[in-house]
C-alpha cells in the first residue's frame, strides 16, 4: 500500500535536501562551538526530524484538498498576524513569535507564506483554467491577495498592526511574481508594473516614509559599508572578511577565525553561509551552490511534469520563494545585497524555517506523487 503510494516519491530531491541538511548541522555545530549556543546542532536535528515527519505527512494529503481549504487558511493567517502583535514575544526588537508554551515558539509569518503559495496557486489556477487572458482586474486582485499580509508583516507606522520584518515580507513577493509570470501576464503589463514600482519606490525612498530608520540604515550601510562600523555595515564587512579569507580550501571546521572569534554576526543563522565559506572555502561554497541548483532545477522539473496547472503553480511558487531566499541571503553574505534578516533555507538554524521548508517540500512531493493520478 505504502509502496504504491511512494512509487513516484522524489527520492532524488529528498537526497539533495538531506545532504544539504547534514552540511547545515555540521556547520551549526562548528559555528556555535565557542558560544553559549553550542549544541544547537542537536536542536536542529530535532527540527529536521519533525520536518521530515511533517513532509511525509503533507505528501499524503492530496494537494487539491489543501487548495480547497486555502481561503480559510488565509483568513486564519491574517488573524494570526494580528495575534502575534498582541501576544507575540519580542526578540531582537521585533515581535515575530507566539509563545506556545513549553519553550516552543511559533512564527506565523513563515507558515503564512505557505498559505499564500497555496492561495496564489488556486487564484491563478482558476484564471488559467478559464482560458482567458490576465486582466488588470486580476492583477489588482492578486496584488491585494499578497499585498495585505505583506503590509501586515512589513510594519508601517500609520498602520501599526504588524511586525517590523522587512525580510520575511519580501519573501512573499516571489509568490506574486511567479503567479503573474505563469498566469500569463503580458510584457506590456509587466513593463507598466515595473515602472510603477520604480516610481513608488523612488518616491518612498526619497521622502523617507517607506522604510523604518533601521531599514534605511541597513540600506545605507549596504551602499557604503564603512559609513557605520557598528551595525549592519560592520556585519557586511565582517561577512566579506569571513568569506574572502576562506580562500580556495577554507580554514577547516572549527578553525574559521571570523566565525569562532565572534566577529561574524549570528554565524549559525543569517550568516551561516559566510561561516561555511570561511571554513570550507570556494570549493565548499561551490558545492553548496550546486546542491541548491540541483534542488531548484529538480523542483522546476516537478512543476513541468505536474498533473495539472494547480500542481505546477504550487511547486513553482515554492521554487520561486526558495530561489529568492537563497539569492538574497547569499547575496547578503557576499555583499551583493543589503542586510535583511532572511535566513538561508536548509542551512540556517531555526525551527520555524526548517519546518516550513520541509512542509513545502512535502507539498512538492505531494504534487509529484500525483502526477500520474487524476
Amino acid at each position, binding site marked *: 500500500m505504502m509502496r504504491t503510494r511512494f512509487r513516484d516519491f522524489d527520492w532524488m530531491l529528498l537526497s539533495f535536501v538531506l545532504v544539504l541538511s547534514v552540511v547545515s548541522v555540521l556547520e551549526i555545530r562548528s559555528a556555535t562551538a565557542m558560544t553559549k549556543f553550542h549544541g544547537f546542532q542537536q536542536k536542529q536535528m530535532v527540527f529536521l526530524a519533525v520536518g521530515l515527519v511533517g513532509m511525509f505527512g503533507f505528501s499524503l494529503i492530496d494537494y487539491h484538498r489543501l487548495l480547497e481549504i486555502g481561503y480559510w487558511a488565509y483568513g486564519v493567517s491574517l488573524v494570526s498576524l494580528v495575534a502575534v502583535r498582541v501576544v507575540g514575544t519580542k526578540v531582537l526588537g521585533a515581535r515575530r513569535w507566539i509563545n506556545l508554551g513549553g519553550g516552543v515558539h511559533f512564527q506565523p509569518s513563515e507558515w503564512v507564506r505557505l498559505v499564500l503559495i497555496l492561495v496564489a496557486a488556486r487564484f491563478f489556477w482558476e484564471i488559467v483554467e478559464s482560458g482567458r487572458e490576465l486582466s488588470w482586474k486580476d492583477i489588482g486582485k492578486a496584488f491585494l491577495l499578497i499585498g495585505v499580509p505583506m503590509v501586515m508583516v512589513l510594519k508601517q507606522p500609520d498602520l501599526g498592526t504588524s511586525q517590523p520584518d522587512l525580510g520575511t515580507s519580501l519573501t512573499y513577493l516571489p509568490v506574486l511574481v511567479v503567479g503573474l509570470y505563469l498566469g500569463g501576464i503580458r510584457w506590456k503589463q509587466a513593463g507598466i508594473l515595473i515602472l510603477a514600482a520604480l516610481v513608488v519606490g523612488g518616491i518612498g525612498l526619497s521622502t523617507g516614509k517607506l522604510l523604518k530608520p533601521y531599514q534605511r540604515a541597513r540600506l545605507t550601510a549596504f551602499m557604503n559599508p564603512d559609513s557605520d562600523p557598528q551595525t549592519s555595515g560592520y556585519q557586511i564587512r565582517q561577512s566579506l572578511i569571513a*568569506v*574572502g579569507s576562506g580562500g580556495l580550501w577554507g580554514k577547516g571546521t572549527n578553525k574559521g*577565525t571570523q566565525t569562532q572569534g565572534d*566577529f561574524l554576526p549570528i554565524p549559525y543563522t543569517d550568516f551561516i553561509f559566510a561561516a561555511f565559506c570561511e571554513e570550507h572555502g570556494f570549493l565548499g561554497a561551490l558545492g553548496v551552490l550546486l546542491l541548491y541548483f540541483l534542488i531548484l532545477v529538480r523542483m*522546476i522539473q516537478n512543476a*513541468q511534469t*505536474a498533473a495539472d496547472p494547480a500542481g*505546477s503553480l504550487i511547486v513553482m511558487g515554492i521554487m520561486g520563494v526558495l530561489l529568492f531566499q537563497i539569492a538574497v541571503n547569499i547575496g547578503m553574505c557576499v*555583499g551583493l545585497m543589503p542586510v535583511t534578516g532572511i535566513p538561508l533555507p536548509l542551512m540556517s538554524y531555526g525551527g520555524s524555517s526548517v519546518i516550513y521548508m520541509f512542509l513545502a517540500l512535502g507539498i512538492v512531493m505531494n504534487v509529484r506523487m500525483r502526477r500520474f493520478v487524476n
Partner: protein
Amino acid sequence: MDWNSVERKEKLPTTRMHVSQYVVALVMVVLGCWLWRLQILGAANYKVLAQQNRIRKVPVMAPRGRIFDRYGRILVDNYPSVTCYLLREQPKNLDADLPLIAEGLHLSVDQIQATMKHFQYAPKYQPIPLKQDITPDEQAFIAAHREELPELETLDEQRRLYPKDGFAAHLIGYVGEVSENDLNQDRFAAYEPGDVVGKSGVEETYDSILRGTDGSRDIIVNSHGKEVGQMGQELAVPGQDLKLTIDLDVQMAAEKALEGKMGAIVAMDPHTGEILAMASRPTYDPNQFAVRLTSAYWKSIMDDPDHPMLNKAIQAQLAPGSTFKIIMSLAGLQENVAQTMHVMCNGGGVFFGQFHACDKHHGMVDINNAIPWSCDTFYYTLAEKLGIDVISRYGSSVGIGQKTGIDLPDEAAGIMPSVLWKEKTQHQPWYPGEVVSVGIGQGALEVTPLQLARALGGIASGGVMVRPHVVFPSELSADELSAVRATYPGSGEKTIPITPANWETITDAMAQTTTPGGFDTAAAAHMEGIDFAGKTGTAQVMSHSALARTAGGHSTVPNAWFVGMAPRRNPDIVVAVLWEHGNWGNNSAKLAAQVIDAYVTEQRERAGNLVKG
C-alpha cells in the same frame, strides 16, 4: 502515455516554465562568480584583514632593575601592580562609553579625553594606559563590564617601590611617563608615548640599564576583545639590578642628621670618588611620582618655596663662608706667602680703604692657628696679598666653579669669581677690593656641598682629585661608562701638585678645629678615638639689604657649613654639611660627626672589631 500532460501544457506557458531554469542557473552563476572574486582573487587581502581582526599585540612590561647599596642592601624594589589600558581599535563609538569608564575608574571624562589626545598620534592598535595601579575595586569593575566595555583591558606590571619618607629621594630619583617634550629629544628616540622613564637621579642617569626591554605577546582575541589564545611572544628582558656606592648606614645617619632641617649632606670616599651618602632636605616622596601623581601633590611640591625637588648636595649654589679658607690656605702655602705671614688681629682691619671686621680679637695669628680660629683678618690679608687671579686659579684647580662630573643629572657648577668671570657675566670691571670678601668665602663665590667635599678630599689626599660617582664603574660596560661620562662632563680625575708639607699643615690645623680645649670652633663635634678634622663655615645669607627686605618670609639667619674628614691624612671619608639657616658652623660640625661616627662604627663592625648592638 503523455497525453494528459500535452493538454496541460497548453494551459500554462511552457516556455516561461522552461526559462525559469535558466533564471536559476543565472543566479547561481552570478553568485559563483562573486565568490570567485572574493575567495580566489581577494583571498590574500581578506586573510590579512582577518588576521588584523583577531591578533592584538599586548605589551609585556619588563620589570625595572632593583637598586642596592654597596653591600647589597635593597634601596629600591618593585611590587606587582595592575594598569588599565584602553583599546581604541573597537567597532564602536568610544566617546559614548566615557562617562561609564570615568565613573568605574574614578577618573573624570576630561582626564580620559586628555589621555586619548595625548596618544592620538600613536598607532591605533597600540593600547593606551588609562590608569595605573588600579585598585581591586576598579579591577572588579572592568571584569564585570567585559561585555559593555570590551575596550578596557588590564595588564600586570611591576611598579617602583621607593624608600619611605623621601629617604635618599634626590639621589635615587623617580620614574614617570615620558613627556611629550622628552619624546622630541634625540636621546628618547627609541621611546614611545606611555613608556616609563627615569626622571631624575640614578633612575634618570642609568635608565637604559635599569629599564630592560619590554616584550610583547600576540594574543588572539574575539570580537569583544577577550583573549582566547596566544600566537607568539617576545619575552621581556628585565632591567639590570644596579649596585650603588651608597652605604646604607652612612646614608641613614645623614638622613637622620638632617631631620627637621633644610640643607644637604654628602659623604664621599676621596680615594675613589664613591659617594657614601647623599641627602637633601626638604624632601619629597618619589612613590607619589611613580603612580597616580595627584595634581594636588604636584602643586604642593612646585609651590613649596624651599624647593623639595632640588638635590641641594649638587644643586645648591651658596657662599661657602669660612670653609673656603682651606682653599685660601692652599693657595697661600703653595705660593709661599702664608708660611711667613703673621697678622695682628684686632677684630678686623682696613683693606682697600674699607674696614672689614673679624668676629674676635685673635691677637697675633699665623697659618697654624688661623685655620682653627677661622680668623678673618688673617685671610683678608692673605687675599690682599694673593689677588683674585691667584685665588681663582687655585679655586678652579680644586674644582670650584665647575661641575664635578658626578653621574647625576642637573649638577650645578657654582661660581669661582675672577676678573674674566666678572667682565663676561656682569659686564663690569673687577674692583680690587672685592677680593677681600672672596678671601673669607663670601662675595660672588658660590659652591655646592659636593664641590667642597671633593676639594677637601683632593687636598687631604695630596692633590689627587677624583670624579664623584654613585655607581661603581666596574658595574658598567666600557660603553656605558663612557656614555655616562660624556653626558655628565666635569673637572673629573686629575692630580694637582701640592707640596706635602703644605697639605700636612692644612690638615693638622683642621684637626685642631674639633679638638677640645684648644680653639673651640667645633670642639662639640669631637669624637673620642676618631681622627676627625674639618673646617666650619658660617655664611651670611643676605649680603644685600634690599634683597633682605624683599625676601618676605625667608630667613636671614646665616647658613652653617662644615666640611670634614677622617682620618686627617689620606682620609677614607670626607663629609660636607650644609645646614641652611643653621646659624653657626659648629652646628653643622656636629651633624658631620654623626655621619663620620656611623661610617667608622660600621667599618669597625665589618672588620669584626666591634660587636653590633
